[in-house]
């Protein structure tokens, strides 16, 4: 086959759709079970993204549970693959906002064949809005992207997907070398209430990683909180105060809260005071908590001392 003939073949190939194992596997399956595993072949196109004969080209937000029209989808797909960023970014935004069950197809495709980081980021964010499990494989790949901003967005999008495998990716990224990426992974794990993140979050807090402080407060067990309190003096006061303060906002026994308030009282600085003030703000007016009284007492003492 000549190069020219091969190019003609490519056009037909592109018209069919995905060539990546991941996009092919993800889009071929109604629910995502495929992974980018060795041995997968990119021979077939993504059926879900094919234009259905006779489909109407309608724009706008699709009703929940209803797919976008084929024409709209084709137009947005074309925009996503445009040479300039503007139409691509707009298309990604529109697809993400649509909530349509078939909107993820073009987004997965564009990520699968590759795009400039700006378009990739927008496509990832849109996938996060759609919360489509089919996007897991491609998001997992982008969670290891060399661009930290792209990684962070992929982690947020993964966090939104109701797929248990996402937690493992997020846990791994807690060890990312970029603090911002670690912070996003930590926040996302906390939002997902992933209890198994607690040991690694604890290690991060021990290393004064401020991005892990609040997430640990959300996930920590009472035992971990007790261990944390013992770290006072060895861990940055603000980091420790943030974790303990976040814990105070949780629905736990007041006895435990009281211990945390006492621990916060031993931590000097504005971070601990802020945590106590924020705690008081969360206490319902009619509720009488010993921990509240203790917190108020500490704040008063600090005010007097000033």
């Amino acid at each position: 086959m000549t190069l020219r003939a091969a190019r003609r073949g490519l056009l037909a190939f592109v018209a069919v759709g995905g060539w990546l194992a991941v996009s092919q596997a993800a889009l071929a399956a109604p629910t995502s079970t495929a992974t980018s595993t060795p041995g997968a072949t990119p021979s077939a196109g993504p059926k879900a993204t094919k234009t259905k004969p006779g489909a109407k080209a309608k724009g706008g937000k699709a009703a929940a549970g209803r797919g976008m029209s084929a024409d709209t989808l084709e137009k947005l797909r074309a925009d996503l693959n445009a040479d300039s960023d503007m139409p691509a970014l707009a298309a990604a935004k529109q697809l993400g906002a649509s909530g349509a069950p078939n909107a993820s197809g073009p987004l997965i495709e564009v990520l699968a064949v590759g795009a400039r980081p700006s378009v990739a980021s927008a496509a990832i964010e849109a996938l996060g809005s759609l919360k489509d499990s089919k996007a897991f494989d491609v998001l997992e790949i982008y969670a290891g992207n060399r661009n930290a901003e792209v990684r962070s967005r992929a982690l947020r999008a993964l966090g939104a997907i109701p797929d248990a495998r996402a937690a493992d990716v997020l846990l791994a990224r807690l060890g990312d070398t970029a603090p911002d990426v670690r912070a996003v992974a930590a926040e996302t794990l906390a939002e997902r209430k992933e209890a198994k993140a607690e040991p690694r979050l604890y290690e991060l807090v021990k290393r004064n990683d401020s991005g892990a402080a609040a997430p640990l407060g959300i996930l920590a067990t009472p035992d971990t909180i007790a261990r944390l309190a013992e770290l006072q003096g060895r861990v940055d006061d603000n980091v420790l105060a943030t974790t303990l303060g976040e814990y105070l906002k949780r629905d736990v026994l007041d006895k435990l809260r009281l211990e945390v308030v006492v621990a916060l009282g031993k931590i000097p600085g504005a971070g601990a005071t802020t945590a106590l003030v924020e705690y008081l703000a969360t206490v319902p007016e009619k509720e009488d908590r010993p921990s509240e009284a203790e917190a108020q007492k500490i704040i008063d003492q600090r005010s007097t001392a000033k």
Partner: protein
Amino acid sequence: MTAARASSARAIRPAGIAAAAGALLAAACAGTPLGSSRAGNAQDVVAALAASAAPARRPVNARGAPLAFVATTGPGGPKLIAFDLAASQVVWTQPAELLGRVVAGRSLIVQAEKGGSLVARDVQTGNVRWESPLAAGVRRKGYAVDGDDVYQVLAAPGGGKRNTFRLQALDGATGAVRWNVDLPGLKAGGPAVRGGLVAVPARSQYVSLIDGKDGSERALILSREEAATFVRALPEGLFYGSKGVFAVSAESADGTRKSPAYFQANLPTFVRATYHWDMYYEDQTNYTAIDRNRLLWRAEMDGPKAGFANGMVVVHNFRFFFGFDAKTGDVRWAYNHPRVDAVASEHTGGSVVFVAADGEIGALDAATGQRTYSARIPDAAVRGATFDAEGFAPASPGGAAGVQPLSAALASVVWDPDRRYSDVKIFAVDQLARQPGRDVTGQLLKILGQEGVASAIYQKAAEALVARKDRGAADLYIKALEVRTDYIAKTKTHGLDVLAKAAGVMQAKEMAPALVAHLGEPDTGLLAIAEIAEALVAMDARESLPALRDFLCQYRADPVFARDPAALIAVAEAILKLGRGSDHDLLLFVAEEPKTLEALRTHLRRALFQTARSGRSSE
């Protein structure tokens, strides 16, 4: 030389001052000089050697015990300590500030001490027997002892900038001058003496052999091809040389390197090939850094042929000792002394004995490097030592089984925390890499994975790992590859490019999954990516195609790769070589898609065209 007997120096007993120093060189001289025309005369050398008696292979001191004379410093002031190696105990301690090395005789030791005097002390007690002071302006080039006869070479200002040199014989019992001999020429070094024959290096390329009885010059060696900077007396013979060693014999009378009496070790570049200190420099008669970084050797004679005993030479390099095959330069053993420098050492025939700066005394089996002896002088800060311990060779504990494997000894050098010795460590890595076995591969991988390793050491280990093709240790390579960069675990992927290269060279397909996993890591270096791609091709790892495709698509339009597209190109090449039809379709798309980086597009177009053309040719 003048030919009159002299007796101008007087003995001080027990610790008095010798005769007026200024008279030393003014005294009349003894001895019969040879003319320069006799230089290099082999018959003269043979006759001189025949008249000298070979010393016994045992300590020369009257105690008959192997002794170490140790110069120390510390809060109590400088001291000289005699230590019995066999009994592992201090024999005596005397306050003494040494300005020169101790030289041991039968009933006395001599050394230059504070003030410049040559001081003789009783070997049994350390008490001063006599002192021989230096006159103003006179310098001592060196001294030697033979039994109880003491010899020193003195230099005094002559006319203009010239010095005049004199060999002086002193009576060991009294310090009285037995005779003086003027040495011709403008340069002379310290003496060595063996069996009544005194050897003095002179005028850079001569060695004068002088009868210890009367100062007569018996032979004059002419070293034609290299300077004679030292003379050395050993039980096995007299030696001279500089860059190599000549055994004094008929064959070396006109020293040429082709002489069978000449020998020189083949040594690696890190070794400072100091066969002996330079005896023209009087500062080297004192304990210096040279004592910590030099060669330890003994000789063996086979008729006219001379060579290193057992074909070995030992390198003392501060804290490290290496036994080398003198001919091939291969290391046979290594010893790493922990923490502190060995400040003095000596080859006793069967052992290498040493004293460390903290007072630890040790001995190594000269053949195997096994530590055979350990003792300690308490509370000592040692600045130098002299051994009179000929033949001292403690039994090896545990026999041959107790010998540390060479690879383990070399590894201990590599992992030594002391950062001063990078050249030694580079050598150790180089030698380690030549050793077979999984353990060695494991050590090299450990170097590769270690934070803060000097780049030269890392490079050596890297080269070795690629070159050794240790397929049997593929599991160790995989284990190294499985280390990921993780901020929490404080781990970091190191040497990935090297590991990939090694995997490719070995065509170790079992390593492919571990390599592929790094393509998806954000911190994987661009060089490593290219090496991984090439390795996957070398091992024909088609199962890696999905990961390669993912990588190519993910970054084909990423401007970060615009400046250095080599990694992307390598991945595309790997897909081209490993892939089939649909992969080539993908590559065509990447080549044609406008957002693909221009360098990648250009490369792919060319590569695809060539592939298509070669496909047509094969049809």
